[in-house]
């Protein structure tokens, strides 16, 4: 289950947040093209907090890792017991998810037990740097879409599955006048997933010739190699990223190499059973940009709070409160000094037995909701709605997901 959860996160492209975005890096999403999207495949914390949420694109691109970092995914999926089969879910494949912060010892009902002595030599391993904001991202950034979506996953084996996904709907294109131009489009995507405890291969190939590939390989017990690639037929639009993750006893470190001479590294350390601090640097060769950022995460078993700052002028804060086993509330604040953007959002996440409902309201005047209903074993019905009152943009979508 945890592995599936990780896979889902990995497949989540939303986190393609971008360091690049900050650096005006251009990337086009597979299914939905957004205007001037920076290449998303960075999972670093810079990405997530700093980037406005995108719809999670089909896998593989970058979305490894959650929250703030690139991976941040808008994760479409969390694993649910019914979805326990090993097939990896495509990034937009949503399942019933259980988003819980990792349990922290010495905490009862959110109150720190000060009488118990803290063993500073035995601190828990922190979450990966890109997943610092994963609870907030999972609750606040579902994979909203407009149109019809149908996903079919066929499992051939415990570890191997093929998936077919069809999307028919409108995608937004940038226009000269700044208005939103919606172009009807449709695409079919074929994918193959192979999941092993030690090796994960996920590939998605669309009708436009774009291939999203993800490889995750456990080289040793503590060293993990991840490769994200998004290849197209058009020249200069392909992206690739190599990540080397090292997991220590109470720290994690990651080194990234990407195309366009992108180099990044991050490090996160547990300093107490509840608090972990991390830092990140990156260097973008072709644009001669570099950045450094710091992040902190405090989690108990009732709530999680995170904060991130970067020298690119981005401040991102988030807070998620688990009100009960089934309900959690999340809030998020992001400030971009360079562009003067301030966004805050507040949302709820109901994880019930047969459905998962997420809703949120934004300071940009956007209200969104996302429902995944489990009709039957392996059959999920999805409804997505997003109303942007400021721009008068209304997006409604429905879909079905069949298969484990």
């Amino acid at each position, binding site marked *: 289950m945890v592995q599936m959860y990780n896979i889902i996160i990995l497949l989540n492209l939303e986190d393609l947040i971008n360091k690049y975005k900050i650096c005006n890096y251009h990337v086009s999403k597979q299914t939905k093209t957004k205007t001037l999207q920076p290449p998303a495949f960075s999972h670093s914390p810079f990405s997530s907090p700093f980037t406005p949420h995108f719809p999670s694109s089909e896998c593989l691109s970058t979305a490894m890792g959650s929250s703030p970092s690139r991976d941040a995914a808008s994760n479409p999926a969390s694993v649910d017991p019914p979805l326990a089969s090993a097939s990896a879910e495509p990034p937009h494949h949503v399942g019933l998810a259980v988003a819980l912060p990792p349990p922290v010892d010495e905490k009862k009902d959110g109150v720190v037990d000060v009488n118990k002595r803290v063993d500073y030599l035995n601190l828990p391993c922190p979450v990966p740097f890109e997943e610092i904001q994963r609870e907030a991202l999972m609750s606040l950034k579902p994979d909203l879409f407009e149109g019809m979506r149908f996903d079919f996953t*066929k499992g*051939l*084996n*415990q*570890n*191997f*599955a*093929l998936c077919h996904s069809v999307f028919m709907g409108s995608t937004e294109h940038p226009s000269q006048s700044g208005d939103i131009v919606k172009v009807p489009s449709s695409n079919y995507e*074929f*994918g*193959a*997933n*192979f999941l*092993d405890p030690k090796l994960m*291969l*996920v*590939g998605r*190939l669309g009708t436009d010739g774009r*291939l999203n*590939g993800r490889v995750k390989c456990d080289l040793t017990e503590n060293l993990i190699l991840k490769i994200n*690639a998004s*290849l197209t*037929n058009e020249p200069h639009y*392909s992206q690739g990223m190599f990540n080397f993750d090292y997991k220590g006893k109470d720290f994690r470190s990651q080194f990234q190499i990407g195309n366009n001479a992108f180099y990044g590294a991050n490090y996160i350390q547990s300093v107490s059973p509840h608090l972990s601090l991390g830092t990140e640097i990156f260097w973008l060769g072709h644009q001669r940009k570099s950045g450094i950022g710091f992040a902190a995460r405090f989690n108990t078993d009732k709530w999680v709070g995170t904060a991130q700052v970067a020298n690119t002028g981005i401040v991102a804060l988030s807070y998620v409160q688990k009100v009960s086993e089934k309900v959690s509330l999340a809030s998020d604040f992001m400030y971009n000094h360079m562009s003067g953007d301030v966004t805050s959002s507040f949302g709820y996440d109901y994880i019930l037995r047969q459905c998962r409902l997420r809703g949120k309201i934004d300071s940009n005047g956007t209200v969104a909701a996302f429902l995944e209903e489990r009709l039957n074993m392996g059959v999920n019905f999805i409804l997505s709605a997003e109303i942007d009152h400021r721009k008068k943009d209304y997006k409604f979508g429905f879909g079905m997901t069949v298969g484990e």
Partner: protein
Amino acid sequence: MAFKVKGKVKSGKGTRGGSPSKVKCVKVWTTWAMKKAKLIVHWGFIPLVIVVGMNSEPKPPLSQLLSPV
């Protein structure tokens, strides 16, 4: 005319020392290799995943690959 002049300057640099042209050679070959690698990955990744998956235990039958059930 301008092109001819440029060409002369370039060849002049090349003959001056072996290393600039070697570096250029390496760059050209790396670019060529990256292009070929990208092509191979683009076409071969999904077949690779399928081959790895079909050979994993328990081996799924080949008909399952194409049948919709």
